[in-house]
């Protein structure tokens, strides 16, 4: 689960991590007032669930409150397209107004999970403000990585090693040690899957500041933090993805016209692969869960059909233990409820396959049965071509 920059900074500052003076605004008037408070010179930052905002024109330095207001008017409601958003971009609904700071040096700092060692790891680099992936490619020796032993936690001397490696010394080095320890504490207590401070800066005056911050929470741990669901900004998500989330379905909108419903993430990915192999274009990724139930199948079917781009539906359920006749009933009920005239191909495996097939073929829907994965994909592409 992602949150906005201003929310990430709010959380970090409760852990004693210094952030620039800032104020979040919902209207151009509020932006102007906030800019006035900062003394006119400030940074206006669009809040969206994606990085790369600077290059896309989502972050601007302004010198007067009126200028701040003008920039805000231009940004509000605009769909900002960055290299992380995809071509449709993300709508700007909130703007962060922040004091502008004279920067002496910039660093990169993050804590995330290292799958290889099954531990959290700290990543730091003296090349701040850049994409860490870019630094990793161009100058891997400038990246310092520390995997954290969960039994001992992150120790002061380890944090100091990192701070020294960044080239810091004196008081600011000790400030950085404390900041690193607090970031790790925040990561654990708030169940973060990523905390990224980029850039972390030293100001001309010699203070550390988290200039930009990103936090992602571990989706599996959201149940432990009652405040998290309220922090979500639903305007940043696809409406169908929100509905799918309510029913515990994993849905991702894609660009094609064949709606897909599959049980299990791996099989769902393989289904997208096989559709494209036979010349089809999937409209979505939808995983109804390894053990799909009749209700979930019915809800999933309705979600797929709400997407106007969908011109045909491919269902691939490898149930195994589940009964195919029950799944078939779920599909038929949902299709009838929304009066689905589109061509459908169903490929099912599991117990009672023959009963399931019979139910579908007698349902009056425009449906064909796929005998296996390849056969199903070929049939749906052929039906779509004819329709």
């Amino acid at each position, binding site marked *: 689960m992602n949150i906005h920059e201003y929310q990430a900074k709010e959380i970090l500052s409760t852990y004693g991590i210094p952030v620039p003076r800032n104020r979040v605004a919902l209207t151009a008037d509020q932006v102007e007032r906030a800019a006035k408070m900062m003394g006119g010179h400030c940074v206006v930052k669009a809040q969206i669930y994606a990085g790369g905002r600077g290059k896309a024109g989502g972050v601007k330095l302004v010198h007067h409150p009126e200028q701040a207001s003008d920039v805000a008017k231009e940004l509000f409601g605009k769909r900002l397209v960055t290299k992380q958003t995809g071509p449709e971009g993300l709508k700007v609904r909130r703007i962060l107004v922040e004091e502008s700071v004279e920067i002496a040096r910039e660093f990169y700092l993050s804590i995330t999970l290292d799958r290889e060692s099954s531990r959290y790891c700290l990543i730091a680099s003296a090349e701040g403000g850049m994409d860490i992936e870019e630094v990793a490619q161009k100058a891997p020796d400038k990246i310092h990585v520390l995997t954290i032993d969960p039994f001992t936690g992150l120790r002061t001397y380890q944090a100091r090693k990192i701070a020294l490696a960044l080239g810091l010394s004196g008081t600011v080095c000790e400030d950085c040690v404390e900041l690193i320890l607090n970031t790790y504490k925040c990561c654990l207590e708030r169940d973060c899957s990523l905390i990224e401070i980029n850039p972390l800066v030293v100001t001309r005056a010699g203070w550390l500041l988290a200039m930009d911050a990103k936090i992602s929470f571990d989706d599996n741990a959201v149940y432990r933090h009652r405040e998290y669901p309220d922090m979500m900004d639903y305007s940043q998500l696809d409406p169908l993805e929100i509905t799918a989330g309510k029913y515990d379905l994993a849905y991702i909108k894609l660009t094609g016209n064949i709606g897909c419903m599959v049980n299990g993430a791996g099989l769902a990915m393989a289904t997208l692969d096989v559709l494209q192999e036979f010349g089809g274009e999937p409209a979505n990724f939808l995983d109804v869960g390894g053990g799909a139930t009749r209700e979930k199948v019915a809800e999933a079917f309705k979600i797929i059909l709400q997407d106007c781009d969908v011109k045909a539906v491919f269902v691939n359920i490898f149930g195994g*233990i589940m009964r195919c006749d029950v799944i078939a009933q779920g599909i038929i009920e949902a299709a009838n409820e929304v009066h689905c005239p589109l061509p459908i191909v169903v490929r099912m495996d599991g117990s009672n396959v023959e009963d399931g097939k019979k139910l579908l073929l007698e349902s009056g829907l425009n449906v064909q049965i796929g005998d296996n994965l390849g056969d199903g994909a070929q049939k749906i592409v052929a039906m779509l071509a004819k329709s």
Partner: protein
Amino acid sequence: MSILINKDSKILVQGITGKSGLFHTQQCRAYGSQIVAGVTPGKGGIHIEGIPVFNTVAEAVQYTGATISMIFVPPPGAADAILESCEAGLDLAVCITEGIPVRDMVIARAVQARSKTLLIGPNCPGIITPGQCKLGIMPGYIHTPGKIGVVSRSGTLTYEAVKQLTDMGLGQSTCVGIGGDPIIGMKYIDVLKMFNEDPGTEAVFMIGEIGGGAEEEAAYWIKENMKKPVAAFIAGSTAPTGKRMGHAGAIITGGKGKAEDKIRTLQECGVTVSISPTKMGETMAQALKK
């Protein structure tokens, strides 16, 4: 022969009184697995389907001699269940539970790695030695005894692969679903090592997906050590960048974890890769002829 489990394996089920715990206990027993005990804290002393239920794993081990645990405990208590089975000194814990918080798994995995207990999962379909013992949620009927070892990060895609193998007349020695989470117990290499040493396994089919670097690690290990033919399939060739495809691990970030890179590395290391998910069985047959 097989790896990890066989017809003599004595299994206890943690979370046996839950809905899915009980359902799959019945399914596994119907397949022939020896389920000797259940563990549900607070319900010790009762019998469920004739299986004695204990309050703790240690008690269950003491009275029944179980050496393997199958875990169906819901996410808030699942990491605890793994730790308990490690402390009881079991040989193997198979955790089916999906959705365990990462912070809990970091601890559980660190403790488990220092114990004698092996861990499969979490968020996995389990493990099966066809015709002998099923320990998990996979459908038994698609499997057939034979000599192909199967190892996979996925659930239902593994069923698809196994069905294709069975349809080609290629039976399986043991199929291991290692799980789709970012933190798991046994990894590809751990399972491949066992298949390499197992006289009952002649070749291996490996199923991977986008995200992380586990498939590449496995590929390099295969190149250096594997004495038996390996075939593979990688799901997600057509997945868009940066989107999470169901599994938390399956995310392509910063150009790492792409299917094409994994496929190329596997091929360079001598693995026969099926480009289409419809040809997994055929590809295995080809690899055997090499």
